[in-house]
């Protein structure tokens, strides 16, 4: 028994190191001065910690544009995707209709779809429709690719909701709106919220479409902008600034994870193991 606890404790430390070391590394890099990284600085911690990189990056209009695009596109895609997924998941969890299995299979197929295979045709189509290098040009495909995950997560949650409670409330004299508002919404909200978080992560992370369907900072998102962030000397990338930008865009993720960790884990595993 004692040996087991030791093993678990060691495993715990190992997991923390594994997960957090690279994050600690970019944070440390972000505090190294440009002179230090230009000269080559293989030690882990900065010699003289400086905020220079943060000042530079928050003054960089391209980066700020990318941040604005990322937030805008990810939030709009998340909102719309979750609305459509909620309708579909409600039908799947609660109603009997023909083609229910076909919808689930379609969602599964799209979750596995190689996104890059769409780059060519979408690039061509979007140029024709004037959607190339616009927010909707990214929002539309992001919605399509997050719908499967959102539908599964929500359908799994909705199956667990005791819907009889709604009738019980009506029997007790609540109007149907009250029953829906006071009983069903609070029960369904956590699921909807979880689906929204997972969807947001996807849209915030997406890279292939972001570099293929945009061409200027008018709609380029953070991952795409970061990959173009070369600086004046192509043979010496601005390590510090790249690391700083990385830290800045990771902060929202860390905040979301800190607040909603339980929900995210539940959402990630709900669809996958049992319905």
């Amino acid at each position, binding site marked *: 028994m004692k040996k087991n606890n030791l093993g678990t404790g060691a495993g715990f430390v*190992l997991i923390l190191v594994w997960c957090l070391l690279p994050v600690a590394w970019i944070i440390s890099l972000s505090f190294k001065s440009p002179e230090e990284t230009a000269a080559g600085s293989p030690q882990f911690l900065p010699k003289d910690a400086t905020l220079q990189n943060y000042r530079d990056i928050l003054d960089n209009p391209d980066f700020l544009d990318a941040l604005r695009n990322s937030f805008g596109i990810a939030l709009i895609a998340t909102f719309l995707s979750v609305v459509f997924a909620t309708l579909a998941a409600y039908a799947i969890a609660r109603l009997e209709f023909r083609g229910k299995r076909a919808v689930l299979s379609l969602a599964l197929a799209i979750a596995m779809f190689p996104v890059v295979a769409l780059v060519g045709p979408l690039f061509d189509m979007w140029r024709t429709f004037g959607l190339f290098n616009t927010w909707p040009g990214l929002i539309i495909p992001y919605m399509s690719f997050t719908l499967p995950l959102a539908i599964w997560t929500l359908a799994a949650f909705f199956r667990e909701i005791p819907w009889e409670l709604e009738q019980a409330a009506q029997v007790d004299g609540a109007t149907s709106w009250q029953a829906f508002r006071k009983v069903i919404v609070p029960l369904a909200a956590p699921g909807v919220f979880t689906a929204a978080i997972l969807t947001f992560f996807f849209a915030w992370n997406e890279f292939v479409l972001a570099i293929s369907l945009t061409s200027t900072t008018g709609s380029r998102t953070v991952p795409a902008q970061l990959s173009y962030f070369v600086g004046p000397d192509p043979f010496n990338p601005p390590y510090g600034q790249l690391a700083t930008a990385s830290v800045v865009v990771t902060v929202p993720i860390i905040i979301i*994870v800190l607040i909603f960790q339980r929900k995210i884990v539940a959402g990630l595993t709900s669809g996958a193991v049992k319905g």
Partner: protein
Amino acid sequence: MSTSVAPAAAQEPRRPGKLGKAPATARSVSENRLGLRLVAPAVILMLLVTAWPMIQALYLSMFRYRLTAPDDKEFVGIGNYTTILGDSLFWQDTFNTVLIMVITVAVELVIGFAFAMVMHRIIFARGLMRTSILIPYGIITVVSAFAWQFTFSINNGWVNSWFEWLPWIGPDTNWFGDHWPAMFAIMVSEIWKTTPFMSLLLLAGLSQVSEDMLEAAKVDGATWWQRLFKVILPNMRAAIMVAVLFRALDAFRIFDNIFVMTRGAQDTESSSFLTYRQVIEQLQLGLGSALSVLLFLSVLLLAWLIVKLFRVDLAQARGEG
């Protein structure tokens, strides 16, 4: 909207008989119609961005069509496909992709399972553990690629100085100067980023293994390894297969890490990267579309192989059977 429907639906039997058709009552007809209406927007959106462009790609793939010379569009039949399949670069990239997929998924399965075991057992600091495991999952892949690129960097990385005691690593080891070290670095980034996802899926499967059965095996004198291989793993089969299926298909699409870390230098290009390069950089829409179709077919084949090979019943695994 749901308010008016919910009571009506709740009075309906959930499944009107496993076999045979339900009688077409007015209510079941209207339920059917409502169901279709509710899923329609999602289904249309999903098809709009996948099925339609895919048909477009099928059509374009039969032309020699370069955006820089749109007037030279010319029907070539399966010419693009024969060009691709006869090109060694295509096979090199396919080999790289399959290699990355097999190695990363295998390593992630082992590490992810170890993580799941620790998370399953641990009784303290569960919140801290969950938070740290979710950070790699949530972090942008491009950021992960940069973090690992800097880790392996010859000027600014710590790998060379920390692991100098290994015979094949010195202060001048250039990880991105050769094929295998570069592939190694790419795989490390991929594994770091996606192991948490794997471990969470496995943890969910692990928590469904009955404690009683484990206790019984222990009483019967089964060793730790026997319990692992005879009780725990067989009972987690569904969870393992779902995790492998999802991760394998995801790894097959690898793009971000390669784009950031090597841009395909040192022959580290993947199938996705090749497709991207043909379409976006070379503007070869015909050839690129043919590559897209081939990529789509390989993913289908791969999914089919995994499902057949491991007999994954997704419906059952998802509790929809």
